[in-house]
């Protein structure tokens, strides 16, 4: 097997397993994720509690399952926001070109100079914390990235002969964009979305760790880490296992994205 396809394969397997976990958590968790019992607080992993228990005696495995919902929800919805606005901005810039493109891209590049996490923190400080605002902040954080990808896709496809000929035939802009350009940049959008997903998960866990992201009772792996911090020495598994799940999800999407990009390049 080729090295490139191994990356794709491992990424797809990781993402599928975690996705399945998320689906399962809707129907079943071994214990109630918020079920407290201080008598069994901070227990080490065992057959009864595979990942141990936290400071309130809650089953960590159940909480990780529950937290996977938040991770996927944040990832998918913030991609949808970023993609929608990125498509509008990047599409306008790429389709019309000229001065419009020049101005829009200058703004986009300036925003990209600010690190994503700083930009997200800035938005959250104005919007306030909570799940919805976190999603909104991460979605806005992603707009410049998607606008860039979509603009360059538009620029390339616009020059293809079949697009030019359909323009000559009198097809409207709307038809050209949705019938011809969109299907041709679809794979680029998928790659960008996959890679952005991992960025969004990292940013969400960072924000939630700082107390600026998802708030209780909504479960979040980042928040679990900030709770686990106080018990680092007497319950190292709590912080260890929770973090490993963030790494696995981010790693899965990174490898999937890289694998898909290599696959696309090979095809071209």
């Amino acid at each position, binding site marked *: 097997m080729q090295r490139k396809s191994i990356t794709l394969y491992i990424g797809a397997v990781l993402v599928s397993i975690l996705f399945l976990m998320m689906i399962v958590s809707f129907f079943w968790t071994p214990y109630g994720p918020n079920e407290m019992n201080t008598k069994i607080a901070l227990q080490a992993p065992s057959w009864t509690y595979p990942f141990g228990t936290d400071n309130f005696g809650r089953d960590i495995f159940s909480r990780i399952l529950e937290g996977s919902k938040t991770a996927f929800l944040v990832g998918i919805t913030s991609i949808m926001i970023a993609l929608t606005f990125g498509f509008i901005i990047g599409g306008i810039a790429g389709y019309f070109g000229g001065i419009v493109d020049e101005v829009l891209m*200058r703004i986009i590049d300036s925003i990209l100079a600010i690190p994503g996490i700083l930009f997200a*923190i800035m938005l959250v400080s104005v919007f306030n914390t909570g799940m919805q605002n976190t999603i909104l902040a991460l979605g806005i954080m992603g707009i410049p990235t998607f606008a860039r990808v979509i603009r360059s896709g538009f620029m390339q496809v616009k020059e293809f002969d079949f697009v030019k000929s359909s323009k000559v035939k009198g097809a409207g802009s709307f038809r050209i964009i949705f019938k011809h350009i969109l299907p041709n940049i679809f794979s680029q959008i998928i790659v960008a979305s996959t890679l952005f997903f991992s960025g969004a998960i990292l940013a969400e*866990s960072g924000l939630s760790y700082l107390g600026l992201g998802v708030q209780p009772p909504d479960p979040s792996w980042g928040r679990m880490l900030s709770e686990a911090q106080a018990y680092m020495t007497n319950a190292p598994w709590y912080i260890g296992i929770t973090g490993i799940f963030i790494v696995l999800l981010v790693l899965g999407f990174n490898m999937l994205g890289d694998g898909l990009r290599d696959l696309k390049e090979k095809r071209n």
Partner: protein
Amino acid sequence: MRFLVKKLVSFIATIFIVSLLIFFIFNILPGSPAQAILGVDADEQQVKLLEEELGLNEPLHLRYIHWIIGIAQGDLGVSYKYGQPVAEVLKDRIPISFSLAVIALILTVVIGIPLGILIAKTDGKWSSIILSMITQLGISTPSFWLGFILIMVFAVKFGLFPTYGFIPWSENLGEALKSVFLPSLAIAVGNIAIVIRYLKNSILDQTKEDYVRTAIVKGLGANEIMYNHVLRNALLPVLTVLGLITADTLGGSIIIENVFALPGLGSLLVTSIESRDFPLIQSLILIISLIIILANFTVDLLYKVIDPRIRV
């Protein structure tokens, strides 16, 4: 010369757009800062008075101009929470974040470049699969979680480093370095992985070039070709990610400072958000962004100096 002018114009334009964006986000979105300071129970009269006192009743464009002129003169506004000039609040904190960022960047270069060369030299099928897995892992690990792991292993278990806090450089050089080493390493790991990846690909691309074949035919040794010819060209693309890495280092330090309880700019940002201290947040974000824009500008100029073929 034309290059310099063009870059300078784009540098100033970027600063302008970023400052405008930051100002816009903090001043146009709903919610009066005066209301936020006084709380929801405050009556309208009080809010009005405070708004006047803070200069919030001026027209928007004037406020922006005053803000920018103030910053240019080193006046960053007055922190609501601390009741003193923002510049004063930042003074003691800047050296901490600066040390953190500089050491993280040094670690990135010192570890990343030799490892990248080593990996490019041993490029085989299986070794490259394993190494690409490791670099992927480095990129995918949240730096703050890595910070916890480093604390648990090197500070708690082996007692080699302090678990948290900062020791000033003026007090004890060795202890100061120790207190920022683990957080810097936690930030650097992801960037080291990025440098390794870029450098390895770049070296492998270069070795396919004609001049390398010529050098081999001339009978030059592998090491001589690598260090005298290939590396000089291969390092160029790595330089372009240096701006990105600086951004990432500063972004990462915001979270890491909270993990290691370092009283730098990042931990200040988080506490000022909790107390909704808008002048402080606004200035902090602008300062961090300016440093990154400046770093990108420097990288652009450096690139031109190293490779005069670059045109704009």
